[in-house]
């Protein structure tokens, strides 16, 4: 590994170090929760620690480091942060819907049925609940 710029001022080094360790520690906590939580729908929540403050902390550290080291604003890391912040809810909602669809198709009792009361009403009115 090449030595980092050694003439970085002390406050910048401390701020960069704090953000780096904050981000990576939150990523690790999210991964541990991802390993230990019992069901899929609970496990879905844990990795978002890594994608919110994990990405945010490390991107902030990188932005501060390159801005101070090259003595001009280097803000291109904000692209990764914005992209991850926008895309993570999309992927996790798609995966949760896919898992819900699979659990309902297998009918294994892990998830509630779809619109229980609506089906009863339909049955009363039409007498044919399988159509809906």
């Amino acid at each position: 590994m090449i030595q980092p710029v050694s003439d970085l001022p002390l406050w910048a080094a401390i701020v960069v170090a704090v953000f780096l360790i904050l981000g990576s520690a939150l990523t690790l906590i999210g991964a541990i929760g991802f390993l230990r939580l019992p069901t899929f729908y609970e496990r879905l929540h844990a990795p978002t620690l890594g994608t919110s403050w994990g990405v945010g902390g490390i991107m902030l550290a990188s932005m501060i480091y390159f801005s101070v080291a090259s003595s001009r604003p280097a803000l291109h890391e904000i692209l990764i942060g914005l992209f991850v912040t926008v895309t993570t809810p999309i992927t996790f909602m798609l995966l949760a819907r896919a898992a819900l669809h699979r659990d309902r198709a297998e009918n294994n009792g892990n998830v509630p049925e779809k619109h229980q009361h609506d089906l009863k009403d339909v049955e009363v009115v039409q007498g044919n609940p399988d159509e809906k």
Partner: protein
Amino acid sequence: MSAVILLTAISIAQLLIAIAMAIASVRMFRGPRAQDRIIGLDTLYINAMLMLVTFGIGTGSTIYFDAALVIGMLGFVATVALAKFLMRGEVIE
């Protein structure tokens, strides 16, 4: 002094992210169902992206940023395609 602080922090951050990647790959190999494996893959590539950014801070070169951006975009597309496959049974309909 500041170099020592930076190097120590970068080493600790890389160690923590490497442990997180190991845990994500454990869940990816052990996960009871397909959706657990996909979430494990998602966590794994996000952590690999963070690891590349810490490498970029350590070496002081901005070329790692481009690799991290490409990993983020292609990983998103891969996860969406896999979720779509789980939902419908085919990716493009």
